């Protein structure tokens, strides 16, 4: 069956370090992949979208890579801050359908 896996354990890092979150998928050939941030009790907030023909995309302190051979996306936050603490979700759209399949999310805790 189709599956999207993110680090199930929380990621704890020190302020100023780079946080790296992983999203692995199986049985998909996604048209694009999206990353969202979700704070407790709130809806997800869109961060970045990367298409299947793109290897890397950046936005300020955020960087996303997309390796369709490894079936993996990496999400990096450089110079992390306590305000970056949240749950981060990756989501795939397999065939430009608009139907997003989400991973379970990884909780990031940045300590001062």
């Amino acid at each position: 069956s189709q599956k999207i896996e993110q680090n199930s354990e929380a990621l704890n890092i020190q302020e100023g370090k780079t946080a790296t979150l992983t999203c692995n998928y199986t049985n998909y050939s996604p048209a694009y992949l999206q990353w969202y941030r979700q704070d407790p009790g709130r809806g997800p907030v869109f961060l970045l979208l990367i298409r299947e023909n793109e290897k890397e995309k950046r936005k300020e302190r955020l960087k996303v890579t997309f390796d369709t051979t490894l079936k993996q996306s990496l999400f990096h936050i450089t110079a992390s801050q306590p305000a970056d603490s949240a749950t981060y979700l990756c989501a795939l759209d397999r065939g430009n359908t608009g139907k997003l399949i989400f991973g379970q999310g990884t909780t990031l805790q940045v300590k001062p």
Partner: protein
Amino acid sequence: DAGVTQSPTHLIKTRGQQVTLRCSPKSGHDTVSWYQQALGQGPQFIFQYYEEEERQRGNFPDRFSGHQYPNYSSELNVNALLLGDSALYLCASSYDRGFYGYTFGSGTRLTVV
């Protein structure tokens, strides 16, 4: 610029009852999707509406139905509520099929007792 607005924010219902949740999309967006999110899990796709038609549907029973109005606002209806329907229900709007990302509302927390 108002984002996605959902109402109500919280709701408590009894098993067997029916519920209607409402969503106003972000200005300029024509597509509305609904998701169910259980605690500690990622959102699960319920269905998507575009031009007042259901365009995509996830693995949810027929008890879950929806509607989109000409002004792009949308409703999610759930009949014969079960305890397992307790979750955060999220509405997401986009232009076309979300090729530029989705804007989510803060959700409706539904508790079935």
